[in-house]
């Protein structure tokens, strides 16, 4: 077993220190050491996106990121979306537009859509479908997810303009 390493990062705005084996994956650190079970494991090969988290302003699949790569990073997971209890526009839109069924892909979907709307505040349907293609959903057929991202975009733009 390789020597454990100390790693520090910011998780949803809070400083976190962990001591992990070099081989430990970020998804396991989040879920098993830090009790952040929102991101899920679906494939372990970077295909399904259930484990998507935001790292330094980029979406990453946390099942293929080593925790030791996160030293000094800023991480955002689904648990950081409603600080103070008020839902993020995306969370609200996913509910109102029936963009989830079993809920397993939802944290990754919302986290990915968050990054999309940061980069492209008013995406077209084609852009949404392209940007969300790294996140698989087996239940919804994506149609309502696209709608939800669109309505969240509208709401966020209106808020930004106000």
């Amino acid at each position, binding site marked *: 077993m390789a020597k454990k390493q100390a790693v520090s990062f910011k998780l949803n705005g809070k400083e976190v220190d962990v001591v992990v084996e070099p081989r430990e994956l970020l998804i396991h650190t989040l879920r098993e050491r830090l009790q952040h079970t*929102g991101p899920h494991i679906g*494939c372990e090969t970077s295909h399904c996106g259930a484990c998507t988290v935001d790292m330094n302003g980029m979406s990453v699949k946390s099942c293929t990121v080593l925790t030791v790569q996160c030293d000094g990073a800023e991480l955002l997971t*689904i648990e950081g979306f409603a600080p103070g209890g008020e839902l993020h526009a995306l969370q609200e839109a996913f509910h109102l537009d029936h963009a989830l069924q079993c*809920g397993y892909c939802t944290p990754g979907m919302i986290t990915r859509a968050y990054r999309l709307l940061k980069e492209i505040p008013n995406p077209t349907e084609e852009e949404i479908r392209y940007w*969300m293609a790294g996140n698989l959903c087996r239940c919804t*057929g*994506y149609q309502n997810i696209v709608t939800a991202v669109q309505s969240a975009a509208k709401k966020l733009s209106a808020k930004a303009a106000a």
Partner: protein
Amino acid sequence: MPDDKLAREQKLEGMGASRKRKEDARFIRGQGSYVDDIKLPGMLFGAIVRSPYAHARIKSINKENALKVPGVVAVLTADDLKPVKLHWMPTLGGDVQAVLADKKVCFQYQEVAFVLAQDRYAAADGADAVEVEYEELPPIVDPRKAMAKDAPIIREDIADKDSVGHGPRTHPNHIFTWDAGDKDGTDAVFKSAAVTVREEILNPRVHPCPLETCGCVASFDKVRGQLTVYLTSQAPHLVRTVVAMLSGIPESKIRIIGGDIGGGFGNKVPVYPGYVAAIVASIVTGVPVKWIESRIDNISTTGFARDYHGVGELAADKDGRIKALRFTAIADHGAFNSHVSATKFPAGLFSICTGSYAIPKAYCRVDAVYTNKAPGGVAYRCSLRVTEAVYLIERMIDVLAQKLGIDKAEIRRRNFVKAEQFPYTTALGWTLDSGNYHVALEKVLKAVDYEGLRKEQAAKRAKGELMGIGISTFTEIVGAGPNKVCDILGISLFDSCDIRVNPTGSAIARLGTMSQGQGHATTYAQIIASELGLPSEEIQIEEGDTDKAPYGAGTWGSRSTPVGGAAAARAARKIKEKAKKIAAHLLEVGEGDLEWEVDRFRVKGNPSAFKTMKDIAMAAHTSNIPDGMEKGLDATEYYDPPNMTFPFGAYVCVVDIEKYTGETKVRRFYALDDCGTRINPMIIEGQIHGGLTEAFAVAMGQAIPFDESGNHLGNSLMDYFLPTAVETPKWETDFTVTPSPHHPIGAKGVAESPHVGGIPCFSNAIVDAFAHLGVTHMDMPHTSFRVWQQCKALGLNKR
């Protein structure tokens, strides 16, 4: 005051309302409670050592190095499970299956040893360090070769058994032969028919692949003798019974908790070796044990579907009126018959293969065999073997249309069971309870301008372009099922609902079904709200914890609404009957003087004299009730459906195929579904979107290939096709409403129809694109490569 009535009705958010889902609040916050989220004190993690060979003898297993791995606690093999007689387990198909391989392995990735360690990394290290010596045996991969004279015997443990639960066996690799209908009568029609068609049609081996894999956390409390298992199960009560039979622990001391399930689609019905190994490990160690499948384990070992190698034949007159149907299939069940099926239906509901058509004579037969592949199978978003059946008839009617030069919509019109013929008993014995097929088809044809599409297609064909129009007019069979004929392991397939109304008029209802994303907590509450006149918002729904919910067969085969929903309505009606007595007492009138209105009983002719259900709920808990009446306002219903329900639909798919690359663009997909009474239109539409997407996946890309040694050639998401948002088509949905006459609220079930009806619709569209060139059938999946091969075979790809 009619306005007041409408307002009160809307306030209930009962049946027919697109009520927002109650489940969402936790999921959008990442606060779901899936099995891998469960963490118990002292919990160990299990990893499975799997066979690299499809067929081999185990010469030795050496645990020594594995036990030296830091963190590894124990390594279990079949020999360790033998003393407690848990190295084999019964299957839902009437067979037995090795929990851990006993002397030989019969499929690649079969479970050989179970390594227990302090975390999942150590468990994986330990599994890598277990040394197993094998002696390879020749495998059987092609089910059509399984019953050859010199075929190697796969199951030595049952080689001398005449039967494995479903009638006589004629070969050591034979599982059963099942048939239905009039063979001689059908053969006679075929002999004298004006036209006959025949086609070999494959439903390849696929996997439901829910986003969450299977897993469990087993926790045995040695002091109390109690076993608690958090488990990804679509049927927690059946699992509890199987575990009781297996372990000898009294069923009352076993608690199965479903929790939140990340999709099932059939994958999570059976009991898998990993569950049993984890349970045994917890019993042995006295600490909780978690086992979670990897995606590769999931696709390779648990829950494959289909693998039906069919032959379809139709006999008809010269006008295309079908006179007889003869369908046969060789079913590849893999190495153990862990096929999920009702005892009397080893080939599931395959005999629904007469579809939506009035076919006077029919015969079908399924021969199931063992091969050196993963055991199963399960019903992937369908009732058992219904996709296979519907695929055959919906493909064959197109084949017949092409042979006779009749339009593919017209041939359906000519053969539909007519609205006035319902209830209609098919030649294979099912009584279709209701339907209105002509209306559904015409509505869809009009919506897509079918005639215009055919004209466009003719013009494109003249230019050498490929455009296909697929039609599917399917009938599903869901809601297993009538207890006289439907059981699993002897337990009837009823379902249940237990409702308790509180003094202040809120209620809790518990059911024997199990949501995996279908939104039960939302929709069941709507049924009860409409029945009882209590707001759905105040009706709590619970499922999946066997200590709390009444016994039921779970959620699969679209049985939740047909069976569980019926139980909910009937339990509510029992409460309502009692409530009426209380209301009569409170209003000092006879029961006959009362009428029900939205949320209250009122005195006929005097609407200002009434008692609301809330008033009655409170009274039921006081002494102000009729003499001799028990207190409380509770009821339980165990519902035995008198018949299956038969949802149907009419779909049209339009595709454009690029002949130089074989790429297919789904230009349009229009789906009309009739699921009877609609409880929540928003959820119905969501289910249809999802079902169509899974149909798209199966038709256009999914298959689990093997090489001749029985090696998997595609068991990660690198190879196995799950459509992304980019390739998934945009769905257009529509509906008609033909209530089920025998269901308490007229509902039929919906989630599987789009999968079952969608798959042949895609295939029919693809084949239709080539129909003018004499192509009558192309096997799924219609990947670009395979479509390109068809183009190449026809010389279409030459510039």
